[in-house]
């Protein structure tokens, strides 16, 4: 399997804030990678390192085997990028942006661009100052994918897109890219979207990788179990291997990474029993991880 992106022990600091702390990530060809995390988790910072827009303070970043800071042209030529800010020149018309971007990319696929414009219903004669946030996102998406990049990097692509466009067109674009044997890395706070579209997920929390791996694997290793105790408990029960415990009285919901048998044994010590257990959703995993981290920080 060809490795397209290789990030090793990447750290980045903004003043006294550690934005990324020892983050490692590898992206292979033909897969969709999702970056999820709360606001300020470090998703955009990580993406900017991929594009060479930020210089690593520690660690290394390689894209196509190249250093994107030292060799930005060779890297950026093969990358399609949609920024979170949708920072496009106000005075430009969509037509002009398409031609301007085309000049940079010999692999530009005009027919594909036309089709996407039609799908989005965008008027190519309009200036960006006249476009809504959603239309800007759509325009940005068109110029990011129309040159058929080997690596598509999307920073919060859903932001500004309505649910229909998101489910129909964004999904289709990502699928097309992957079917062509290319790679997508995208950040999102919409976890159902990540779950639906990604092969691989990296959960970031406060600049650190909280969970990483294939989506199915990550989900399989996290379970939500409903536990019932014979008598109401006055305080949160202590259960080995639990990421988060919520509830009150006799019924408690536990998100855990430990095996079901271990949990059963741990609960049995307090004469409790598991009445239901299922794999956790990404949303549940993220919330549990963030809460645990906050608890640990408060305890420290």
């Amino acid at each position, binding site marked *: 399997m060809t490795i397209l992106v290789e990030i090793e022990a990447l750290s980045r600091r903004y003043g006294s804030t550690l934005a990324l702390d020892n983050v490692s990530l590898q992206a292979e060809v033909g897969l969709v990678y999702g970056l999820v995390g709360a606001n300020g988790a470090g998703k955009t910072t990580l993406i900017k390192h991929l594009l060479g827009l930020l210089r690593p303070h520690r660690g290394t970043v390689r894209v196509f085997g190249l250093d994107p800071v030292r060799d930005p042209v060779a*890297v950026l030529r093969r990358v399609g990028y949609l920024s979170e800010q949708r920072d496009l020149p106000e005075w430009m018309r969509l037509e002009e942006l398409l031609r301007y971007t085309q000049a940079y990319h010999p692999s530009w696929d005009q027919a594909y661009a036309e089709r996407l414009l039609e799908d989005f219903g965008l008027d190519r004669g309009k200036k960006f100052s006249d476009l809504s946030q959603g239309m800007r996102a759509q325009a940005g998406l068109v110029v990011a994918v129309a040159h058929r990049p080997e690596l598509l990097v999307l920073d919060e692509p859903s932001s500004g897109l309505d649910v229909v466009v998101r489910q129909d067109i964004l999904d289709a674009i990502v699928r097309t890219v992957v079917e062509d044997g290319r790679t997508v890395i995208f950040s999102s706070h919409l976890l159902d979207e990540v779950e639906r579209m990604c092969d691989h997920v990296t959960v970031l929390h406060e600049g650190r990788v909280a969970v990483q791996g294939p989506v199915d694997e990550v989900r399989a290793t996290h379970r939500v179990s409903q536990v019932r105790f014979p008598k109401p408990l006055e305080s949160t029960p202590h259960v080995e291997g639990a990421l988060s415990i919520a509830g009150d009285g006799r019924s408690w919901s536990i998100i855990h990474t430990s095996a079901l048998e271990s949990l059963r044994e741990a609960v049995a010590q307090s004469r409790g029993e598991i009445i239901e257990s299922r794999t956790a959703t990404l949303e549940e995993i993220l919330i549990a991880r963030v809460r645990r981290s906050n608890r640990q920080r408060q305890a420290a």
Partner: protein
Amino acid sequence: MWTPAVATLWESWRLTRRRLLLVPALATLCGWLLARNGVSLLTFIILFAAATGMALSLPLFGTRPAFPLSKSFARPIRTSVLVGTPLAYVFAAAAASYLLPAAVLRVATGAPLPLFPAATLVGALAVLVAGGSWVTRNATDRTGLAIGAYVVAGLMLKFLGPFRYAAKVTRAFSVKVASPQLCVLSALDYLAVLLLLAVIYLWISFMVARQRGGEDEPSCADPSPGRSASERGDILESIRSSCVQVLRWRCPVSSPTSAEIWFEMQYYGIPVLVIGALLALCIPVLIQWANGSHSAIPLVIAACSFCAPFLAGVGASIWNRRSSSREKVPAFEAARPIGTAELIGLQVLVTTLCIFAAWVLMAASAWLSLPLLTDLHQNGSPAARALELIHQYGIRLLTGAIVGFTLLATIIALLAAVRAFASSNGVRTLIGALCVVLYIVVVIVAVAQGWIDAIVIDVHLWGLVIVMPAATVIILGKALAGGILTARQVAAAVLAWLLFAVLSVDLLRTEGMMNAAAVLVALSLAATVLPLMAVGIAPWSLSVIRHA
């Protein structure tokens, strides 16, 4: 008690505190150096100028157009309080920026500086500026109002106390001593100022209420909320927007270079040319006016207008296109698949070409208009005279044009570098620049006062002679090592620089500069490496913010 008015006051202070602390402190320091040597009139001028600068800048708060505290529109506060509090703050802060340094120096050195009348004038000027900029989001209207405010301020200065003594002021300049009589306001003058402030307050309140109610729409030149560079929505933005509307052509797709040149020309280059062309049309009118009125003022205006294309060119064209986020360079620009050296090279080239072309247009207009000045006796028509000069000095003119063009490009590239460094290390760059300026002032004052020998200046100049080439080598080496410049680019730059150096030396020789003092000759020769330094430092500095 934390009331809405106090909260607004605190916000006003938070947005302006740096300059409010820094500028008066520096003015006091300079004033103290002068006042203790008995140059009290210059002290007054410096304090008054610094305070006037504060009065002009304080009301602008940040870069937000129109009323600067518009984020408070959604808060439960009455418009009259929302306007009155910052307006009172602006008046008091601007007045204090003169009053406090003047009072301190008056006590410390005994310099007879005027106090309250001058402070009142400064405060009133700040309120006038606020009146010109807070009342509308429409860029064109705002620019017109700002000009109007300056005109009123000028009239105010002319008719109020200090300038009724115009003749005495002129005499006072010759005696170098300030006096409280320089600035005197009668009770009637104070009343007039108060009335003016009240009218401005009522007007701003009315207009801000309109903004709050969404009745004041921005002009087409005003930006969408995306970009702070254009958020200023000033006259330059209006010109750019209009130029793009009128002079639009298709972006070429043949190469990144051609697309980049199109991008630079379309929004940043063409407006500079248009400004040059418009001013070229105005110059004959000014010369005709000077001839008719026998006044030098129109000629001074015509001469000063040559600054306009330069300021318009460097104002926002080079890496000043901040995004709405905290990024120093918008992602749209930073993520283009083009090398930093190529990108800045094209930007500098387009800007230089446009400014140069604008200047040529203006100079040609001035030259052709010279016969309008009847006092100036010329032989033959300007066109014939120009041909004659070209025939006579053709090579030297060409050499001068090449050297001038290169120097202009160098200045633009160095300014871009300073701007890039300032945006990545704002405070440190500012402190560094201030230290350098202060050091130069101290050395000059020390030499002028005879505290140290004049040879110290020569030593500094010789130091510069050594530092410039050495710094150039280091910078180019760093750019090369960092992969910002390739060996081929450096080689090409060195070859071009050799040509420039030969032409410069030839020009210096023909102008007789080689007979000047040895240190000046050495300095002139060393300065020829500046273009080469710019080749290294511009992409290096931009790489610092592109890959922050």
